[in-house]
Every structure is written in C-alpha cells, then in structure tokens.
C-alpha cells in the first residue's frame, strides 16, 4: 500500500488537498532523470543484444545477459510507478531458457518484451521534454505573474510585454495576476493529473503485458484451476465411496448377518416374530444393494485397480439390454479421464435401458493418440434430444469440463449413437 493508492480526486480543488498532485508532479519530473539514466542504459544494453549475436561464443551470453538487464531496468520503472502513483504494472517475462545457447540468443533478439521496453524509453525521451515544459507552465510561470503587481508597485516606470499585451500599470498587472492565480488554482492541478495519467497509460501499454498476453496468461490460469477443480471432484467421489464402504456398508452387512443368525436360531418357533425378523432381514439386504449401486456410481474401485476394461465389463453385465463391449485403451489415461469415460458409458447405457427400447447396444472405447473415444450405439427408436433430459446435459457438461466433446446422433426410428471424445494427453 502506498499513499497514492487512494482514488485520484477529479475536481482541481480536491486535488490540492491530495498527495497525488505532488507525487504526480514528482513522477513526471522524474521521467527526465529516468530517460537520461535508465534510458541510456537500456539503449546500450539493446545495442549489446544486437551486436552480441554475431560475436558467437562471447557474444551469445552477453546478448542474453543484456536482455535480462533491460528487464531489470524496466523493473525499476514499474517500482517507481507503484511508489508514486500506486499503479501496478504487471511485469513482462524474459523468454524462458531453451537449453541451447544459440536459441536463447535468437529468442533474446526476437523478444517482443525487449522491443516494447526499448520503445517505452524511446517514447519517454520527447515526452519528458513535454513534461518539463508542463511543469514550468503549471508551477513556475503563474507564481511569477502573481508577483507582477508587487513588482509594479516597486518599480512604477517599468513595463513588460506579455504576448500582444503591454503591461504597464498596476491595474493591468493585477488583472494578469488574478488570471494567473485562477490558472494556478484550477488548471495547473488538472495539467499535472492529465500528464500523470498519460504517463501511466504509456507505462501500462509498453511495460506491462499486451492485452493478448494478459488474456493468454489468464487462459493458462483458468485451464490449470479448472483441471484442479475437476481432479478434486473426482478425488472427492473416490473418498466418498471409500467412506461409505468402510462405514455404512460394513455396518449394514453386519446387521443383515445378525438378522440372518437370529432367523436361524429362531427356527420354526414364534412365527409372528420370525415374520418380523424376515422382513427386517430383507430390508437390510435391500439397503446393501441400494448403497452398493450408489457407491458404484460414485466410483467403482475396480476402475482404479484394473482400468476401464475391467470396470466396464461389470457395467455391460448389469445392463438389461444386451451389450457388446470392446475396450482398447493403452496406455491407461489419468484417473479423472477414466472416471469420465466410465460415467459416459454408465449414463448412456442407463438411457438406452430407459428410453431407447433397443434390442441391443454396443460400447466401443478406444484410444487414438491423445484422444479417448467412447462410442455407445443402440438399435432403438432414436429421437433422443441432447438439449432435453438432464442426463445428457450432465454428460455434456462433464465431458466439456475436460475439454472433451460429446455428440449425439439420434434420428427418429434410427437408433442412437453417442460419441464422446476426450483429450487424454
């Protein structure tokens, strides 16, 4: 946090009460110093970058070093913007090392960051002159003019020329002084503010990453964070499966077993009690089946242990519609991708069973290069609408979450073909 980080006041009289006015003046005054010091250094460094390249063995590291020097100097300029203006200019990055010295030197030479930063100092040179003039106009001339009446009262005979006007009386001098005072109070602060704003704009445009650069960086971040989200969702599903397996499922099995024993011990005695126990026994077993269906839907452990082929065999076996299954996925994709492919097949087969009225279905899972392709085809009545049911929507979303694509071809009466393609590189 710096003093200048507070919002910049708009009205000139408010500017007078803000440290911003003075910091802005100091900053644009500083531009001249920067041009004469950093600017010259950058110019020299760039020359070394350019000349270094043909010098082979000695030149290449020099070239690379000089490039880094330019970045360091530009870093001072960003620090200055932060301190006096509270302006955060995101840093540019020098090209990453490639491992080959020649490539590094070439990269330094063609580095857009180098040229942007050089351009900054080149533009700053004329600008700094303009700023000096602005500072004189804003802060030096008005006080001199305000002092004019006093001057005339001292030296009655004097006269001076101000543009087309000849100032020869105290009255005329007072008018000029009044105008100068108004100028000083109202216009000077605005001049400084505009100059500083223009200066800041220049720094952001040339010292910070370009808009495409910023967007590219943002996209990279988003891709990474989305990957983390998707992975953590899958990890969470595995954790829930495991918790249920170790907890509720074991308890229910134990309960059902105890009830089974009770039933046995009772034998043919107490038929009314036996009926109750039998009912409870049946309920407990049903609960086990339901919890198993739930946990299997979350994440079947065999998927982690043995991969898609093993996991999908069981899925195909449970499908009420006969399924032909072929799985050829080598090498195994990540757990997340396997989970998603598994989910696509289970959901698609559930849809086939519920809606398609199909005589048979076919599931093909193949890996071609870095793409996992899941195809589920049936010979049912077709007419499935990808935008319709929540099932297909959920599938599309889950596949899209890993940059995959889901297409559904379902002409009325012509069966349904669902294809999901998921990158798995």
């Amino acid at each position, binding site marked *: 946090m710096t003093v200048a980080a507070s919002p910049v006041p708009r009205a000139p009289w408010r500017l007078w009460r803000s440290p911003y006015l003075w910091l802005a003046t100091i900053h644009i005054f500083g531009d001249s110093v920067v041009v004469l010091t950093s600017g010259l250094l950058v110019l020299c460094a760039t020359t070394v970058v350019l000349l270094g390249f043909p010098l082979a063995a000695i030149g290449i590291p020099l070239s690379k070093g000089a490039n880094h020097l330019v970045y360091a100097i530009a870093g001072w300029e960003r620090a200055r913007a932060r301190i006096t203006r509270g302006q955060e200019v995101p840093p540019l990055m020098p090209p990453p090392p490639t491992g080959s010295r020649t490539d590094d030197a070439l990269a330094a030479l063609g580095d857009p960051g180098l040229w942007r930063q050089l351009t900054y100092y080149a533009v700053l040179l004329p600008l700094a002159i303009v700023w000096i003039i602005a500072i004189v106009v804003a802060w030096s001339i008005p006080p001199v003019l305000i002092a004019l009446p006093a001057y005339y009262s001292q030296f009655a005979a004097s006269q001076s020329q101000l543009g087309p006007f000849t100032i020869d009386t105290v009255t005329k001098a007072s008018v000029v002084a009044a105008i100068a005072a108004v100028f000083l109070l109202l216009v000077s602060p605005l001049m400084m503010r505009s100059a500083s704003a223009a200066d800041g704009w220049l720094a952001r445009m040339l010292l910070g990453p370009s808009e495409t650069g910023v967007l590219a960086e943002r996209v990279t971040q988003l891709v990474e964070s989305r990957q983390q989200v998707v992975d953590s969702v899958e990890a969470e599903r595995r954790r829930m499966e*495991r918790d249920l*397996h*170790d907890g509720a*499922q*074991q*308890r229910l*099995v*134990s309960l*059902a*077993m*105890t*009830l*089974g*024993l009770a*039933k*046995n*011990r009772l034998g043919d005695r107490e038929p009314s009690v036996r009926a109750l126990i039998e009912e409870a*026994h049946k309920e*407990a*077993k049903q609960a*086990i*089946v339901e919890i*198993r269906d739930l*946990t*299997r839907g979350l994440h*079947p*452990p*065999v998927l*982690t*242990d*043995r991969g898609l*082929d*093993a*996991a999908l*065999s*069981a899925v*195909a*076996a*449970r499908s009420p519609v*006969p*399924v*032909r*299954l*072929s799985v050829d996925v080598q090498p195994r994709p990540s757990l997340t991708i396997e989970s998603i492919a598994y989910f696509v097949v289970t959901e698609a087969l559930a849809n086939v069973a519920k809606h398609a009225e199909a005589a048979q279905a076919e599931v093909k899972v193949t890996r071609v290069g870095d793409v996992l392709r899941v195809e589920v085809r049936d010979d049912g009545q077709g007419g499935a609408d990808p935008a319709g049911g929540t099932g297909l929507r959920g599938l599309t979303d889950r596949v899209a979450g890993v940059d995959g694509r889901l297409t559904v071809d379902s002409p009325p009466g012509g069966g349904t073909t669902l294809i999901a393609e998921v990158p798995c590189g």
Partner: protein
Amino acid sequence: MAETRVVIAEDSVLLREGIVRLLEEQDCTVVAAVGDGDALLKAVEAHRPDVCVVDVRMPPTFTDEGLRAALVIREQYANVGVLVLSQYVEERYASELIGGNPGGVGYLLKDRVADVDQFIDGLRRVAGGGAALDPEVISQLLVRSRRADPLAVLSPREQEVLRAMAEGKSNGGIAQALVVGEGAVEKHISNIFLKLNLTPTDGEHRRVLAVLKFLDT
C-alpha cells in the same frame, strides 16, 4: 460332516467378529481371524485350514490386497479352499481368481453372509474342492463370453444350466433352481457336453471342463 477349519481375513472388526460368531454357530472352527493379507498368508502357513474367507479390500493399500493373497494361497496350497468376499464382484477379479481351475474357489458378494444357510453351503463346497460363484459374477462372465462368443452354440436354457453348474450346484440343485425335472437337467447337460465337444470320460471331470469353457479360460 467333519468339522470345517476356517481362517478369516477381514479388516473390519465388526464384520470379522460377526463372521466368526456365525461360523462357530454352524459347527465350523475358526482357527485364525486376521486383518490383512500378510497375516492371512502366515495364518494359512501355520494352520493349513480347509478354507479361508478373504475380504478383497484390506490394509495397507485398500485395493485388491485380499485378492492377491488369495491368488498366492491358491497357487501354493492346493488343499486350501479360498472364498473371497467383496462389496462388489468383478468379472476381472473372478477370472484372475479362478485361473484355469474352478475348484476350491468361491467369490461372493459380502451380503451373501446374511443368508446363513446358503453361505455355509457355499463355504463347505469350497472347502471340499468345489466352487461357489455369485450369480452376479456368473452373469458378468456370461457377458464377457458374449463378447468372445464361445458359447453362442448353446441355447438360452442350456446357458442357464451351465451357469448353475458354475455356481457349483448339483443336478438336483439345478433342477430345483430352474423348476424342471432332474431328467430334463441331465438332458441339457449332455447337450452342453456334446456342443462343447466334451467326450464322455469321467462325469465330474466333464462338468469341470464345461465350466472352464464357460469361464473362457
């Protein structure tokens, strides 16, 4: 029937103790009850039980620990039956477990222990060198064979009979399950042998071979 000596491997204390109680009530002797694969192997080496009851998911990996221990037992101790219990049954695990020999092996859903008599039946079959496969395993194996299609020659009824054979049922048991006469079952079985090109040598041996064919090994 002679007393059946059992080793139990199950990491959930609750279930382990439940199974111990259940078995002892049914005239079995639990010679050891352990909580992981290594302890199971040691217990089998020490006690040479008739059968061990093994949970698939045990420490330390909580994946297929029990299954791997079961495979070791099947390979090294031919006379020790292995009954694997799991919350899920998987065709892949079943194939690995059965290997080329559907004898002295069982693979059941954990909830089957709740049906005490059937469970004890299965356990005794496995202890005696027979098989006890969960109906759900069988249906998964059938689907796989649908892929490979070695059994396409069998009629649906014959497939049902074969499936019941793989579950370890006798002719009488099959007849009861399919609600047909024992004669009809025998006719189906001889058709199965015929269609699978199994020549009439030892009856029981042919049964095993048919089941092996069925298991696509």
